[in-house]
């Protein structure tokens, strides 16, 4: 069973872009699990405006970008069309993380 829903959008010819809505708010544990896939960057927007949340991104060259907001359920994934199998890997990691929380 999948612990998420997703919608595909396509703003660029060379990429798959999906927005996932997860069953749980994103936690540091999910970020840690996904950060195996690329370089992690975190942006602490809450330092500048108290109502803002913190953002993270995981990037691998032009092949992959995962971005999400801590304590929110949205996760955006952009993957090169040359590398679609990485989507399955990301979904597996989401399900594993979600199962542990359930």
């Amino acid at each position, binding site marked *: 069973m999948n612990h998420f829903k997703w*919608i595909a*959008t*396509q*703003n*660029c*010819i*060379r990429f798959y*872009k999906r*927005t996932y809505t997860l069953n749980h708010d994103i936690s540091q544990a999910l970020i840690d699990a996904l950060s195996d896939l690329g370089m992690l*960057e975190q*942006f602490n*927007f809450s*330092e*500048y*405006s108290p*109502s*803002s*949340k*913190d*953002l993270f*991104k995981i*990037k691998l*060259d*032009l092949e992959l*970008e995962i*971005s*999400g*907001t*801590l304590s*929110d359920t*949205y996760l*955006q994934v*952009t993957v090169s069309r040359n590398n679609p199998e990485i989507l399955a890997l990301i979904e597996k990691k989401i399900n594993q993380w979600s199962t542990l929380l359930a």
Partner: protein
Amino acid sequence: MTALKNHFLRGSFHYDRNAYLAANEPAVFHCNHYNCFLQAVLLDTIDYIPEIESVLKDSAQEVAYSQFKNFFSQNHFSIDEKKEAIADYFQFAGFGKIDLNEIDTNGGVVKTCYDHYGISWKIKFGLSKRPVSYFTSGFLAGAVDAIYSTPCGTYFSSQQSCIAKGDKESLFRISRRLPKLKLRESQSEGNYSIHSLSQSSQTGVDYSGVREALTHMPLEGSHENGLIQAFGVLLTRHYANYYCNISYSFLRLFEAKMGFKGHKIATNLLTEAGHVCAFNTFGGIMQSNEWNALIRPMLKSHDDWIHGIVAVVNAFGWGFWEIEDFIPNELLRLKIFSGYESNSYLAKFGKSTDPISFLATGGVAGLMNLIYVLKIPQKGPITLDKDQYKLIHSSNKFFQAKQIKCRAMGDDFDLIEARRS
């Protein structure tokens, strides 16, 4: 983290004029969609204006030369340090990766697998029949002028292969220009004005917090590819004077060929480029996780989305955007202080008889169309493609904008009003 070498150029954000300046050259954030669309609009007129290819290249040469001449005049750098500084800034600004080590006083060859224009064109339009990296080509010629302290225009660059054509790499051949041509230096900061950021009392969007957060975000090209992936687009810290010089040269060439009719056509095309910019850039921002994290928690209503984007624009180096009057779903009247279009125009051409803030005018209309015609706030993620764009114009009453005041005409600020058509 390794320390920044002292011969590397970064510049800084000036909060009293909402501008990024690096060695006196103002930089503005724009994305791949605007960069490619504006260039495509200009190139579409090549049958009427064959000079347009030279305009695209020479304008890049002028801004790159002016910036690095300024930067190198402040310190004594070796030739190798100058080359390293230029390659580093090219990457920092999101233009891609270049290596100038094969360049000497006779010119030489620069090859790259990562060039913003080549990659972006292919992503946006598919394969091109001809090379598209006019900016990179001109930038390289201007950079070599600056490295060897020759007058601007001494060198010339021609693109031999292009990523956008399907070539594995883009290749530029730089040589001494024959016959000689003296190009102008850029207008640097132009006629800017000093202002301060104001907080609208009609929204919970924290204008100052958003500007602080975004101006401290490390928006710079990655070490791997020199591209800035942010807000769901490929961003560049582009030269404000490049956009202005290609746009206003285009306007003048059209006027010279076709008189008043040419002025109207060019104005409409440049404003449309601004509208496309808003559709893709603002639309991309509203669907990005930067938006979800930074802005969305501040939004109490769909109308607040207008304030959210205006707050973001105040960190883009476009000057101060300030809402003067806003009637949801009906009217947006927006003031711009120290807008980069007027700053640049005034310095290069002097006072104008007509409004010239084309990007801003198209942008204000585009913003209202995203919120109230496409109704982005009420929708989940959507593909911002031609079909969505057509939906705007197929609507009975989409928003159109008009510039009512213009600093380049002598007013204290630009004033742009968007209403339903």
